[in-house]
């Protein structure tokens, strides 16, 4: 397994993808975190100010939580590409020639995504803090970086990003077509899930289901969400923190097992 993990690292770092995606993620999150911090802190003279319903500390936590709420698409894509690029460029052939046990390959990909997710998660969280904190400090009511709850949110953000990376790998094992996987990830994260959460949450009968959507589970684990903070009244309840963690892990395991017994059982040719 050690050899398989080393191989996965070499695969990851031997193309330009990892730093290109990291750069894009940093740029995107800096813009979002800085922008939101500015728009939520500066008194625009409008009737309803964010500070009317969020305490300064809650506001800071909300800004810091964009790492997962907005940035989770990056670890998902990083994870899925670890699998789909092998199929796209047929390097899967070579990978299975040196290690014919396919479960080993799938597990190595899942495990190797943990440190990768940790790295992307820390980078993303640092970016959000670096872009958001100065704005909150200067234009708002403080950055609250020493605050216990804020620190908890930051640490949980990194953990959630790790889980998203693993989810990306697990998803990639199910949908190995690279283009399709990216399209589905983008469509699901940017469109389908946000709509589904609002739509399902709007009715009592279905609001229970919406809690179990992956994004809602991540928010639950995080304990604070950009979306749920604003989902005043109409927003559905979230699972408890541990529940969110379990739901995410179950998604990862189910997807990986499904991938192993479907696409990873098929002929490679």
């Amino acid at each position: 397994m050690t050899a398989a993990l080393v191989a996965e690292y070499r695969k990851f770092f031997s193309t330009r993808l990892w730093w290109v995606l990291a750069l894009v993620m940093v740029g995107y999150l800096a813009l979002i975190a800085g922008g939101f911090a500015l728009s939520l802190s500066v008194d625009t003279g409008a009737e309803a100010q964010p500070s009317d319903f969020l305490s300064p500390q809650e506001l800071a936590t909300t800004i810091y939580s964009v790492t997962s709420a907005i940035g989770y698409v990056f670890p998902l894509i990083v994870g899925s590409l670890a699998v789909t690029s092998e199929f796209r460029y047929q390097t899967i052939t070579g990978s299975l020639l040196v290690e014919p046990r396919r479960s080993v390959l799938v597990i190595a990909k899942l495990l190797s995504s943990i440190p990768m997710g940790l790295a992307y998660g820390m980078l993303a969280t640092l970016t959000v803090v670096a872009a958001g904190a100065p704005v909150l400090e200067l234009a708002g009511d403080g950055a609250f970086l020493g605050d216990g709850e804020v620190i908890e949110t930051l640490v949980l953000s990194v953990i959630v990003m790790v889980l998203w990376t693993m989810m990306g790998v697990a998803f990639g094992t199910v949908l190995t077509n690279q283009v399709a996987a990216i399209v589905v990830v983008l469509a699901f994260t940017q469109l389908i899930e946000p709509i589904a959460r609002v739509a399902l949450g709007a009715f009592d009968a279905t609001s229970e289901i919406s809690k179990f959507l992956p994004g809602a589970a991540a928010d639950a684990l995080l304990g604070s969400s950009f979306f749920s903070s604003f989902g005043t009244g109409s927003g559905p309840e979230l699972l408890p923190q541990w529940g969110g963690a379990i739901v995410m892990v179950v998604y990862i395991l189910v997807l990986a097992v499904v991938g192993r017994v479907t696409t990873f059982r098929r002929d490679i040719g």
Partner: protein
Amino acid sequence: MTAPAITIEHLTKRFGDFTAVDDLSFTVAPGRVTGFLGPNGSGKTTTLRMLLGLMQPTSGRAIVGESDYRDIRRPAQLVGAALEASSFHPGRTGLGHLRTLAPQVGVPDSRCHEVLELVGLDTAKKRRVGGYSMGMRQRLGLAASLLGDPSIIILDEPANGLDPQGIAWLRGLLRALAADGRTVLVSSHVLAEVQQSVDDVVVIGSGKLIHASTLTELEQLASRDVLVRTADYQAADRVLREQGWRVDPHLEHHVVHDVDAAEIGAALHRANLEVHQLADHGADLEAVFLRLTESSDAPTSQFVGHGPTAPPVDVAAPPPPPAAPTAGDLS
């Protein structure tokens, strides 16, 4: 170095209604170079992929020594395979590609540099594979197959995309590998590419075994062609036909089948003919290969027992020009 044999037993692979490999059985003897031949689409790659655990046989089995490839620990140290020249990430360097394989092959990075030097990619190893020519990709695939210093080497169409120098180099490499006592199984749809390198041949068509023998035995199925050019075309025509030989008249020369050049020379000498050219073209294996594979659906037995007198498909001799005058026209 002794290597285990490769055994293919009643191997069958169906894709829906299509039978890609049909009850195929043959063995690859250890320490020899075996050419695995057949037209494109005859099931060579599918057979190799089943042997290497990438595809699941519908029935039958393909084993290395006594084991399934999938059951071998660190298989790349026993079997090195190069399947397709396109299985690389274009954004990875040649060296980077080998480094992704090295840990599971079980070799240090230094071995990557060694094999890159061996295949002549030393100067290109820091370049991205996306910029490699087809020939360079073939060489990189070969390098990957050699990483684990395996005693069995399986190459699928390694000559594809190689220029003539590359093919000559490949022949040398195959011979060198065999000289080490390694077992080499090399597939090709062009017999000539491997003819000079192989000891044994396995010919398949439409997924069925057509012929399996040593190269020498295959050569005995071939007709020998001798080109004869004399000062007097008609006299030569008469002499050659009087002997009862099979003769193909061409514009300015004849091609005589299955007769020793010396015997032909003697006959022409007795007739006092001035010989300008007497060239033994040897066994025309390509013609045999085409003849064997064109009727792929025919049972194997059809080709057993035919001696040198089997009707040849003469493709080596250039066809006469459309308006070729016959000997009679000239008189």
